[in-house]
């Protein structure tokens, strides 16, 4: 019995180049599995962004376009609308980090959600700017030490962090907004269900669907992969609860 196989939508002979124990690899594998299950590999255009998530096209075996930093949802809007204007219905999703989606790109992300663009956005939230070595981002938790908050995030000095999935859920054009984590098998299985639902909502034409994946960053958190997952399980989920904040089919 075959218990594991590489998804068809993962490029042959590609090896993940993420840091050891990083959740990016798990997230991309889930996305590839879902693309296979929904049979949309030949209709998909993925939008990569800046930061660790840019390398998506090295691994995912679908048409892929890189967006300038933060602009993935605007780029996805253009791809989706242009294909529609030519009579094509393509599946378009973005794969972004929290800095990309919720900091530099918040305007493009939020307005795509507000318009109800029929695209899906996946946001890997690892509570820091990973690629550049772990600086304070919009999602850095209060008290969290980063290279630009050496004494920990402080309300008076640094201001509050953003709870992205909750904010996106407030937009009228949104069909689905949820936060998931990948720190154990149960959560990975649930994340797959949630991402699949977000993809299905786009296929049904219900509007903007969004999944925030609360992820680890062992290198910049200076923790082992195991300890970084413990941190998510014991600390971060209290700040960033795992939940579905909007679901138009169930609300």
């Amino acid at each position, binding site marked *: 019995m075959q218990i594991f196989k590489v998804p068809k939508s993962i*490029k042959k002979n590609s090896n993940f180049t993420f840091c050891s124990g990083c959740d990016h690899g798990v997230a991309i594998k889930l996305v590839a599995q879902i693309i296979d299950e929904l049979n949309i*590999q*030949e*209709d*998909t*255009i993925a*939008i*990569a962004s800046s930061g660790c998530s*840019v390398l998506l*096209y090295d691994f*995912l*075996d*679908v*048409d*892929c*376009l*890189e*967006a*300038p930093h933060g*602009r993935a949802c*605007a*780029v*996805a*809007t*253009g*791809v*989706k*609308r*242009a*294909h*529609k*204007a*030519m009579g*094509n219905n*393509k599946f378009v999703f973005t794969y972004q980090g929290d800095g990309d989606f919720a900091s530099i790109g918040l*305007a*493009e992300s939020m*307005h795509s959600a507000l*318009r109800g663009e029929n695209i899906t956005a996946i946001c890997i939230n690892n509570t820091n700017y990973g690629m550049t070595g772990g600086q304070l981002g919009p999602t850095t938790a209060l008290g969290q030490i980063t290279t630009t908050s050496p004494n920990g995030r402080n309300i008076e000095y640094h201001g509050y962090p953003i709870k992205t999935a909750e904010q996106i859920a407030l937009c009228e054009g949104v069909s689905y907004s949820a936060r998931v984590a990948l720190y154990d098998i149960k959560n990975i299985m649930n994340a797959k269900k949630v991402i699949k639902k977000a993809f299905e909502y786009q296929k049904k034409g219900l509007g903007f669907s969004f999944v925030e994946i609360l992820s680890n960053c062992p290198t910049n958190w200076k923790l082992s992969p195991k300890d970084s997952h413990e941190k998510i399980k014991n600390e971060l989920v209290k700040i960033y609860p795992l939940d579905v904040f909007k679901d138009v089919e169930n609300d």
Partner: protein
Amino acid sequence: MNEKELLKGNIAIAKAALNCGCKCYFGYPITPQTEIGEFLSGEMQKRKLAYVCAESEIAAINMALGAASTGAKVMTSSSSCAVSLMQEAISYASSDELPIVIVNVMRAGPGQGYIFPSQGDYNQATIGGGNGDYKTIVLSPSSVQECVDLTYKAFYLAQKYRTPVILLADGMLGQMAEPASITENPYPEIDNSSWILDGAKSRPAREIHSLEPSQNKLNRHIIELYKKYTTIEQNECDWEEYNCDDIEVLITAFGTMARHAKALCNHYRKKGIKMGLFRPKTLYPFPYKRLNELSQKVNVVIDIEMNMGQMLKDVRLAVLSNAKVSFIGKPTGDMLREEEMVDASKNVLKEYYANI
């Protein structure tokens, strides 16, 4: 279709875009180009084409970047200070080799400036306001009819060379109306099936990105881009010569300013001074070679611009030591009138003509 109608420059650009198959427009309002978006909004919705009132020019140009990857003909339009916001994505699109038509109906700057006409974005357009080694084709219309003709050409060159093309008009041209006709698009369609992103059906997946962590590959990519720019420079230089057959004095000007400069040529012709005008229609590629040839026939070249002398450096690069180069300019507002140009040019010409 080919009958002349009274058209504003902005409307002429919008109509020409629709007429040559523009499928997507993304934009944000800014005077003096807003009529382009206003006109297209209803027309494109009627035709079930893509039109988004973007949340910013940054979003608009990035929507255009995404749309261009599908092979659809794509346009965005804006003006000066807001075109500045688009520079990052123009750099990306140049590296990604994505065809986008960007209309800049220039207003005065720097900063917010005002809505007066100006030619202050020559440098930004031709040198490029974004990062890295890239060049952007820049077309410069001088009449409402050329707004039509060069819009067609902008779409054609963008597709032919897979590169962003800037149509650089100014507030005067965008806002003024004169008779023009929406002619047939004279250019052929370009086959883009080898590179567009339309889903990996019966072919390997494609990726379009500017990121390149291998220094060898990045070097090769930029060198390939520059081979393309060399081809563009060899094939696509375009210009107008006005009364240049027997010149003693040569005027250089582009866009709307060139029309006024023709009045200066006519003024001196009546006085027996053989003055001609050289007007580049492509600002990049700049027609250095032809200007160099013409400048060999004259003692003096007078460059006239509605800015503080931006095309001037290209004129100097073309003329070299063949002739003296002087400049008449005004950064914005009312166009230089014939009398003003006559007054300013007297100082230059008296060296060569005693009785001026």
